[in-house]
């Protein structure tokens, strides 16, 4: 009897899971489907599934100069994430494995930089950028995105570093390794999945960032989110075009996420101790 109720309960749970998953994925499906429609089919209410698929929207988007925006986004995302890792990995190491008296204050300081709403800082940032001649410049975005992601990345990576067994580091020291060797050949390989996870988060945040981008850039340094809002015009929404652009905009992140997934699920310390 219990076996049957178990099976029943399990099917119910499976059904519920599917339902929730569909609910979450529905907008994405809608977006994908709409991107292959003509603008006329996209505007019908209720939405129709019977339509002649077309690549018209994609070609329109490319004609409207999507690629430079995509290039800007890729450049800003890759460089700001690299900058975050370059600065964040040593910081996380110092704040976890080589703590000093002021470590907790330093951690608090990092966190405090996230407490100010971006809106409150945008006017000074705008003026500073203007004075430096950095308006509509990708390098301004790289610095800002690195600054935006760094505190979070340091906190995240610190928690991964904390899980590194201290005895393993001591073993490496006894084995004759100096600090750089310990860091690069013993600690980093162990925390690599954590660093991959952190990098992925930074990539997503930089890729989807809109507020800085829309305020500090124009035609030269605009990123993909800025390009997307170009479809919201006074003449109305172009659903099919917007969907096609959104699909292209989200593809790179999906691909990166899919690649990183294998690294993410791998266990962190993988049998170092016990």
């Amino acid at each position, binding site marked *: 009897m219990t076996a049957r109720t178990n099976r029943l309960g399990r099917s119910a749970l499976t059904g519920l899971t599917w339902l929730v998953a569909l609910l979450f994925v529905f907008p994405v499906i809608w977006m994908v489907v709409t991107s292959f429609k003509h603008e006329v089919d996209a505007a019908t209410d209720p939405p129709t599934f019977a339509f002649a698929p077309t690549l018209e929207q994609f070609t329109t988007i490319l004609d409207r100069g999507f690629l430079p925006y995509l290039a800007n986004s890729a450049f800003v995302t890759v460089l700001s994430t690299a900058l975050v890792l370059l600065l964040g990995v040593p910081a996380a190491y110092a704040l976890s494995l080589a703590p000093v008296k002021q470590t907790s204050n330093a951690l608090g300081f990092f966190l405090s930089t996230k407490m100010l709403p971006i809106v409150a800082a945008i006017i000074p940032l705008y003026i500073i950028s203007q004075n430096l001649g950095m308006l509509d410049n990708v390098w301004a975005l790289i610095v800002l995105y690195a600054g935006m992601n760094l505190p979070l990345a340091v906190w995240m990576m610190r928690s991964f570093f904390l899980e590194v067994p201290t005895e393993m580091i001591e*073993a490496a020291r*006894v084995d*004759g*390794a100096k600090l750089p060797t310990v860091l690069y050949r013993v600690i980093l390989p162990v925390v690599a999945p954590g660093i991959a996870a952190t990098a992925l988060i930074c990539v997503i945040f930089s890729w989807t960032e809109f507020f800085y981008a829309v305020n500090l850039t124009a035609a030269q340094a605009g990123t993909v989110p800025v390009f997307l809002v170009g479809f919201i015009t006074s003449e109305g929404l172009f659903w099919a075009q917007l969907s096609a652009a959104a699909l292209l905009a989200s593809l790179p992140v999906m691909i990166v996420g899919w690649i990183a997934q294998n690294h993410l699920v791998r266990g962190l310390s993988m*049998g*170092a101790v016990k």
Partner: protein
Amino acid sequence: MAQVAYAGASRVYPGAHSVRAVDGLDLCIGDGEFLVLVGPSGSGKSTALRMAAGLEDVDEGSISIGDRDVTHLPPKDRDIAMVFQSYALYPHMSVRENMAFSLKLRGMSKSEVNAKVEEAAELLDLTKYLDRKPKALSGGQRQRVAMGRAIVREPSVFLMDEPLSNLDAKLRVETRANIAALQRRLGTTTIYVTHDQVEAMTMGDRVAVLRDGVLQQCASPRELYDTPRNVFVAGFIGSPAMNLLTLPVDGDGVKLGELKVQLPVRVEPGEVTVGIRPETLSLVGAAEDGFELQVELVEELGADAYVHGTLAGHADKIVVRADGRTPPRLGEAVRVAVRDTGEVHVFDPESGLRIGAE
């Protein structure tokens, strides 16, 4: 050429209440000797070992290895190898790479590294597992890899920090014997930390007992067992522990219930602490000389049985070793005699020190 000498070595953890984790340790470990550091948790035994490794600062005194003062040298310059309690293997490296790591860092040629790793693997029965990662090994195999990592380096000193405490009981006994045999074969000076006094007694040439950072006694296992220098060592070494009772002196002896026990040394009138091992006591017939014990617990171990009870008119618990085939029942009153009064230990109740030279 690799004796290890602690000279007044101390480790003081600073703070409002500074803690002397190791306090003025004077200890000399001879070349090729297997010395066991033993003590309860918090006794400073691991700290003392880590001071020799260079993983813990030496705040006072000095430590030398061979004829070199290593007090302020980093671990890599001390020519030591350490086996950690958690094994501390590198999880992203195969067994081979784990063992080769230190040799590669020394710039040894690839063929030489391989030869040494394979020789050590042979010795430890790890040849089959050389290309596995630590996560694909059992606890015992991981322990052997940790040993192998130490052996390949051919250091002048092995430092082992409770290397068996993560193994199950059967494997621990087996590995215990293997490590002791291996050390004899290699002849490498070894300092071995454990809280397990059976390991201490069976493995060490000499055993150093620590308590609150202070060395209590350092002697051969036999000597520690037969002539503990103070009450702490007497109670710590031996399982089950020695019975320790503080009693008034009665002439040239003490009275255990109605039994007069003659002491092997002369004592001043007053009180003394008497130590009697469970095997020095035996159960006797009702007619014979002895004292009465109320049985509260019987631990049957097969060959032996340990009878726990309270002495009439005393709060102290007493443990007696009895024949495993005919143990008394719970609640029964049994008669207990002292087999040999020469094996009774006598201590000063104030200072805890042993009375009598021998």
